[in-house]
């Protein structure tokens, strides 16, 4: 399949990319790996006038420690995240969820920033960023700003990124010593999540002292399962308590219906998978 014609630029710095984005106007599209954009182009679902490939900007790649945070460059490919020791130690949930994304080839091309900026509610990493209260650093012509994941995800494929802005870094607070698990349910091994649950819990002496739960594909954005979190905190990490808490999983969701899962089934899945994810994380 052949995409419509477009111009292609590959800036070497964030500043150049922002300039190119401003020059490109409404029809410019950022290529941040290509997991979603390339198929969309090939299927002619989008016909941008110019593609700005961020793949040549070295400063956007890499993982570093910054005090209480792990900072991940927006153009860091999944593969690097999955294997990174800092991530595994301090943000294990992110590594676990990323390892479930697509297939091996895609994991070498797709990037964390690309996934978050695309904001597909069926994408796996939004729920992780939301649950873990990540901060997203956004660069524009007038400098950079930081928004919380909660404020970043606005709607279906819509984020707080403004015109001429680029997501540059994702800052995850450290969850060192927390238990975590990403429970994903999909139609085939490499398909998008029909429903998935991202969980990190802190267990002290058999009692859950803190909990973070995010849901994938249960609304137009990733969803924070605040009801589950509240129900978990202070409870023993027992199967019964966890299952009872998981009954809150559908609060605040707006499950979509599609050929793979109508809303009622998806809601049922959310509860079952939440229970399993918490149990695995706490175990």
């Amino acid at each position, binding site marked *: 399949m052949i995409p419509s014609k477009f111009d292609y630029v590959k800036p070497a710095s964030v500043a150049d990319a922002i300039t190119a984005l401003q020059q490109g106007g409404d029809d410019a599209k950022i290529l941040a790996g290509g997991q979603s954009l390339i198929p969309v182009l090939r299927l*002619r*679902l989008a016909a941008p006038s110019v593609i700005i490939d961020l793949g040549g900007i070295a400063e956007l790649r890499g993982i570093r420690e910054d005090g209480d945070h792990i900072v991940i460059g927006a153009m860091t490919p999944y593969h690097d995240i999955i294997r990174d020791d800092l991530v595994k130690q301090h943000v294990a949930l992110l590594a676990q969820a990323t390892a479930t994304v697509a297939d091996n080839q895609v994991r070498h091309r797709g990037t964390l920033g690309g996934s978050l900026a*695309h904001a597909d509610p069926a994408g796996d990493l939004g729920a992780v960023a939301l649950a873990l209260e990540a901060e997203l650093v956004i660069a524009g012509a007038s400098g950079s700003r930081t928004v919380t994941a909660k404020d970043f995800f606005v709607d279906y494929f819509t984020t707080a990124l403004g015109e001429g802005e680029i997501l540059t870094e994702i800052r995850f607070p450290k969850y060192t010593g927390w238990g975590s698990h990403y429970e994903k349910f*999909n139609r085939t091994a490499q398909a998008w999540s029909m429903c998935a649950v991202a969980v990190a819990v802190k267990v002290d002496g058999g009692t859950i002292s803190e909990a973070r739960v995010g849901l994938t594909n249960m609304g137009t954005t990733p969803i924070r399962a605040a009801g589950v979190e509240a129900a978990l905190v202070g409870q023993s990490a027992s199967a019964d308590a966890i299952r009872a808490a998981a009954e809150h999983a559908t609060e605040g969701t707006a499950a979509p219906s*599609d*050929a793979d899962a109508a809303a009622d*089934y998806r809601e049922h899945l959310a509860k079952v998978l939440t229970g399993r994810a918490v149990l695995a994380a706490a175990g």
Partner: protein
Amino acid sequence: MTATADPTTLEIGKARTRKEDARLITGRTKYTDSITPHGTLHLSVVRSPLAHATITGIDKSAAEAAPGVIGVYTAADLGVEAVGLPCAWPITPDQKAPQRPLLASKTVHFAGEGVAVVVARTVAEARDAADLVEIDYDPLEPVLDMEAAIAPGATLVHPELETNESATWVFDAGAAGTGGSVDEAIAAAEADPDSIVLKRRFIQQRLIPAFMEPRSAVCDPSGEQITLWAATQVPHILRTMTTVTLGVPESKLRVIAPDVGGGFGGKIGVLPEEMLTVVLAQKLGKPIKWTETRSESLLAAHHGRDQIQDITITAKKDGTVTGLDVHLLADMGAYLGLVGPGVPILGAFMFNAIYKFPAYKFTCTNVFTTKTLTDAYRGAGRPEATFAVERIMDELAVELGRDPMELRQQNWIKHEEFPFTTVVGLTYDTGNYEQATDQAMEMFDYAGLRREQEERRKNNDPVQLGIGISTFTEMCGLAPSRVLGSLAYGAGGWEAASIRMLATGKVEVITGASAHGQGHETAFSQIVADQLGVPFEDVEILHGDTQISPKGLDTYGSRSLAVGGIAIVKAAEKVIAKAKKLAAHLLEASEDDIEFSGGNFTVRGTDKGKAIQELAFAAFMAHDYPEDMEPSLDSDAVYDPENFSYPHGTHLAAIEIDTETGHVNLRKYVCVDDIGNVVNPLIVEGQVHGGLAQGIAQALFEEANYDDQGTLVNGTFVDYTLPSAADLPSFDTATVPNPAAATSNPLGVKGVGEAGTIASTPAIVNGVIDALRHLGVTNVEMPCTSQRVWRAIQDAKGNATQETPIDTHSPGAGLGSIDPNNPQGETE
């Protein structure tokens, strides 16, 4: 006449890696799309987004003005409005066969039908300009449901036919004299308190063949013969049918199928696009190339299956089956494919399967709808038949409280009863269902898994275990020409082969069976090496080009080895007969005293002899040869089998179902096949593995979904969920150690290309239902998705759940929600 070399040196039976693999796996081969003669222009098809509509206007101006465009053409522009694509299988004398045009002129009959074509200098320009062709449509009511389509007052797909029924084909064993009347069997069973009558409806969902290489055609009109390269399974049939369709003399046409990347029946057709490349190449005097996109392929390449099966079985309460009545509705789509109408009919002879049904009747009505055509898909009619009979045998076992394997054993043909003439009049030459079953049960640990199943049921385990059985047979090696003639099939079933003994001792073998991934070059070389006593490496297999291989009936229906391979054996026998005569002359001996073994012709009782290579050279030099022979060892043969071959096997699946989510996990799959003698065990294993994956995919993963407007809603690989290796377990496959070799051919081979697909689908579904039966679940439609399984469990519990929508799009909405007919999401 056959070589009797030391068995350890025999090529047949060796697990050789395939000759073809290096070039195929490294991508260093030529597919049709890799062929670009100088000056090639590119074709893009403008397709209807609507299932059923009147064309009210076509505006070509913007497309014609686009960069690189040579022209935009409708059927009228090309003068091909009266040209119709062939259907070669009139199953009844009064079959209604609407002419399928190259491009729709007045009315479109399915979403994806071509309306106009763009020719441009580059593929990209052709594709861009195709988007600029503006076609106005007046929508008509789509015809989507088969039962509604044949009800009185239905909207007609082709009003001039005055019906949506193409044909009804009946086989009644009572009337044919091959068995008893099923009506009488049902009446008798109804009247008998010691008998039961069981009716079930099964749905064979619509599938898409999804071959790896998209379809493609290149036509070069320069030269005395027009050359047509095509990604096709059937280069010879394509040549003849191009003549029939377009009137190009057959002698003026050369068709080449270069390496072809899979087909599964999906490349058996004669395509409008292939004909259009010929028409346009002739019109413009330039080579024309067309290669479809994946979305076009899913939308417009022919689909498979799509039947409603109403099955009635009668049996004594002791388990003995007494009758089988089959009523099918088969969705043809909007027109008839090349052999589409005959696909369900191929199943007619297989519903009785391995069982001794005394009475049988088969009735099939082929129905037109405003959907993509259906035609052959791996197994073609036989997977549908096998599914229905293997499912209903399980249902009967449940009804009678019997172990499903025991019930099968009670009713199948015992190994000592072969040859056995079945209720449809086919004679199964050999078979040993006991042997394959015993081996499979042992590999599977049937008893152990039944115990585990009982445990899990007792413990109310959230993960339940089901055991699925399929004891299948199939008729393959299509086919005896006379049988095909009796079914009004538009061709014979023979295959041709030639052997050329080159001066330097190498051997060229020409076959009419052109491979599209099967490994013919390797397997045929092994056969020839044994037959002629020459090294495997010295044999070259040539095929797929009508200039090289002028005669053939191509590759489908598991026929390449059982028919094409035997044609090669017959040609080799003629080579040896000629060589023997020449050897006798050169060795000054009587022909009766010449013995042939391991490539050497020797005079009995002496050490005098000639190697076959020496004889080939002597024939080439022709300085000294008998008066009554031509100086050549080269030989041709055409082989027409006398019977089908009947591979069979026992397939067992252990299915785990997560009752909380409905997720189906195929934990273990064991199959033991009896495919007769094996030429290459590695190729057999590959065929079985691939076949299993495709059959399992029907059971668990695949379905072409249309919305209520007749739009294919899962027209990308994002939504049309083919399983990958990650979705399947490692299969435990085996062939029986002592196969019941086919008696119908000298190699004792049966064919294996379709076995896995035919057998596996019912094994999986039987396993799914077996896991849930104790919960009250009696059926789950295919594909048995987690959602369907979960709903079946809820229904059995009496919990109402909402309907599963099929007309919306899957997750990964960023890609999954693509409507291939309207990718931009534009509103009318």
